[in-house]
């Protein structure tokens, strides 16, 4: 067995046997699914009905307020306004809507009051405003002698159909789905880097504090040790992720069928579904499926693997170098910022700029820069990226990867034998020349 496989095997076994690793492997999906189940359970719970007192002096509007699951409207125009105001607390009204009797609609529209000791939600107030405005508009039409039914019939609704130049019909909301798929892959890479990069760092620090490091590197090259560590840890990580996916999937299926949470009841309705009728939806669904099948799945998958390997190795060798440079985990904080920053940047650029403009300058540039490209490029790929951009991005990534691994191994081989001092950036630079 070669030395490298020996190291990989030991690192893998050491990680997998670790108690906290085992606990996290089996507990995380439970927690995750539990959390989702809890949240969806909460959202299905009915909140208390809130009673709104309405004092409508003109008696024109009060019929327009229809009771809903959440709000009940009580017509209390008969009761004196002052008494009503005083009784908000004692009668436990959520609030009091006061509409004065003013004939001029312009004046009226600014004189309506909502009196409440709680701060009402924006959407509730907007609903109230809509109802009153609609009533006022209708009455304004009538005053002007216009036929309201004719106006209603004259109102037009437009829904633009999206078509590609090839004549194929496509659907709306696809950008979101495309970003979603890319983002899922990108996010996976980021999580993987943060969790297992940290693990690599801790394992380097452990060898330093155990003082076994000098025994080991009298037999193997520091570079071999570092690579063995990174590969062994990532294999353990892949295993953990796979277990999470399986347990999570099974648990989600079991829990959702047990609690009867229907996936449809969640409010993730696409704009298409609201626009079209049921029959329409069947056609559209077919379009969605076609679109998804048309996504460059092979490219996406291969790129995911390439960017995953490139990105993970790039970052985890930096983690390893940091681990070698410090004596304990608390000292590592000052060096971790340059790692976290580009990762966060990648995710934000991905969500904000790729979604609005997948082939814009910002998205293109960040999908080239090696530290952000594993995340940003994966989000762009579903939109179709020219092959030369992919090539440049991958070449840059792997070029940087080799440079950083060389750089990290330099710091690593000096750092692992340094004890008792907290290194500065300047010192790290000096180590490169040793």
């Amino acid at each position, binding site marked *: 067995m070669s030395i490298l496989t020996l190291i990989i095997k030991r690192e893998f076994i050491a990680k997998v046997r670790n108690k906290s690793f085992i606990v996290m492997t089996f507990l995380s999906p439970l927690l995750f699914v539990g959390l989702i189940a809890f949240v969806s359970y909460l959202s299905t719970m009915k909140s208390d009905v809130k009673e709104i007192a309405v004092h409508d002096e003109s008696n024109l509007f009060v019929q327009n307020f229809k009771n809903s699951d959440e709000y009940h409207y009580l017509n209390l125009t008969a009761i004196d306004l002052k008494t009503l105001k005083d009784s908000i607390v004692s009668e436990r009204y959520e609030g009091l809507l006061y509409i004065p009797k003013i004939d001029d609609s312009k004046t009226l529209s600014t004189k309506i009051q909502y009196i409440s000791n709680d701060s009402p939600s924006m959407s509730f107030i907007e609903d109230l405003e809509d109802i009153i405005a609609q009533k006022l508009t209708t009455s304004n039409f009538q005053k002007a002698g216009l036929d309201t039914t004719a106006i209603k019939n004259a109102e037009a609704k437009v829904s633009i159909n999206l078509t590609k130049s090839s004549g194929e019909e496509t659907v709306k909301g696809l950008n979101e789905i495309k970003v979603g798929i890319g983002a899922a892959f990108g996010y996976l890479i980021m999580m993987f880097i943060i969790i297992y990069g940290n693990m690599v760092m801790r394992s380097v620090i452990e060898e330093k504090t155990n003082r076994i490091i*000098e025994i*080991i590197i009298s037999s193997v090259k520091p570079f071999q040790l570092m690579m063995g560590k990174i590969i062994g840890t990532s294999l353990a990580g892949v295993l953990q992720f796979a277990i999470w996916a399986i347990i999570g999937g099974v648990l989600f299926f079991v829990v959702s069928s047990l609690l009867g949470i229907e996936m449809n009841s969640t409010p993730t309705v696409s704009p298409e579904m609201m626009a079209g009728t049921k029959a329409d939806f069947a056609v559209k669904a077919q379009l969605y499926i076609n679109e998804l099948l048309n996504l460059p799945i092979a490219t996406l998958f291969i790129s995911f693997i390439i960017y995953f390997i490139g990105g993970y190795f790039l970052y985890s060798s930096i983690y390893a170098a940091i681990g070698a440079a410090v004596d304990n985990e608390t000292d590592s904080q000052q060096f971790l910022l340059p790692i976290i920053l580009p990762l966060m940047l990648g995710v934000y650029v991905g969500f904000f700029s790729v979604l609005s403009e997948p082939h814009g300058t910002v998205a293109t540039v960040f999908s080239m820069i090696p530290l952000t490209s594993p995340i940003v490029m994966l989000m762009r790929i579903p939109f179709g990226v020219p092959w030369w951009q992919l090539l440049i991005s991958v070449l840059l990534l792997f070029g940087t990867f080799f440079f950083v691994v060389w750089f990290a191994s330099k710091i690593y081989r000096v750092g692992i034998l340094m004890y008792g001092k907290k290194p500065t950036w300047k010192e790290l630079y000096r180590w490169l020349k040793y």
Partner: protein
Amino acid sequence: MSNILEVKKVVKQYGDYTALNEVSITVPKGSIYGLLGPNGAGKTSLIRIINQITLPDGGEILLDGEKLSPKHVQSIGYLPEERGLYKSMKVGEQCLYLAQMKGLSKSEAKKQLDYWFEKFEIQSWWNKKIEELSKGMAQKIQFVVTVLHRPKLLILDEPFSGFDPVNANLIKDEIIELNRQGTSVIFSTHRMESVEEMCDYIGLIHKSNKLIEGKLNDVKREYRTNSFQVGILTSNVEGLMYDLTQKFTVGQADFKSLNEDLKLEIQLGNATSNELLHILTQRGQVTHFVEKIPSVNDIFIQTVSK
């Protein structure tokens, strides 16, 4: 080749600091070589270069006549001063792992381990984790791991630190036994009495330079002061002192003796020991007559404080 290790004019620099300045040492085959020097002299730097942990900036190293190369890690056993083991790994697995890293096959490693575990009567530790063992026990394991692959050259940096006297003695006997079987040993320590006891060659490094090297007896001969420690029973002390001071420099001496004798340290100068003995026998009964041999400790302090 009669030398297991030849270090020729090795230079090592850390930035502006020179850790080794053209240091050359020669370790004869089958010897126990004491590598001495105060803290920070460059011993660890030199040892790390021999172990190929760091590379020298200049100079050449020959192991058993061949230029030092990566395959030689299998011929060297190294017990560093800063040593430890994986805390949460089981003893047996850990030993197998470290032995395989030195190029042993798994079955060969197992065979060797059985031999050593039986020898040290520690078979019951096999499935224990290192964190369950005491420091001394862990040190024993480290020693076993160091010698497991039967290296030609054993490099031990402060091997006795952390051992109680019984175990230190056990390890010492093992080192001597291995040496008798042909293993050459480089031995770096601050415990001069063990150098005195075990080493036949020494080398002293101070402030990045090698100052002394050679057979222990040759070095001592070079540092001899030509003085004798004398114990004598006499009734006429003044007469004796008069005779002695005519020819020699005389001082007080301190050594253990069962007699109520006069203890003197006498510098011979140009005279011979027989002349001194002649005077002494005329004046009283000689109970003690020994040449004062410089201890390694004396040589060390004398050289370093120069």
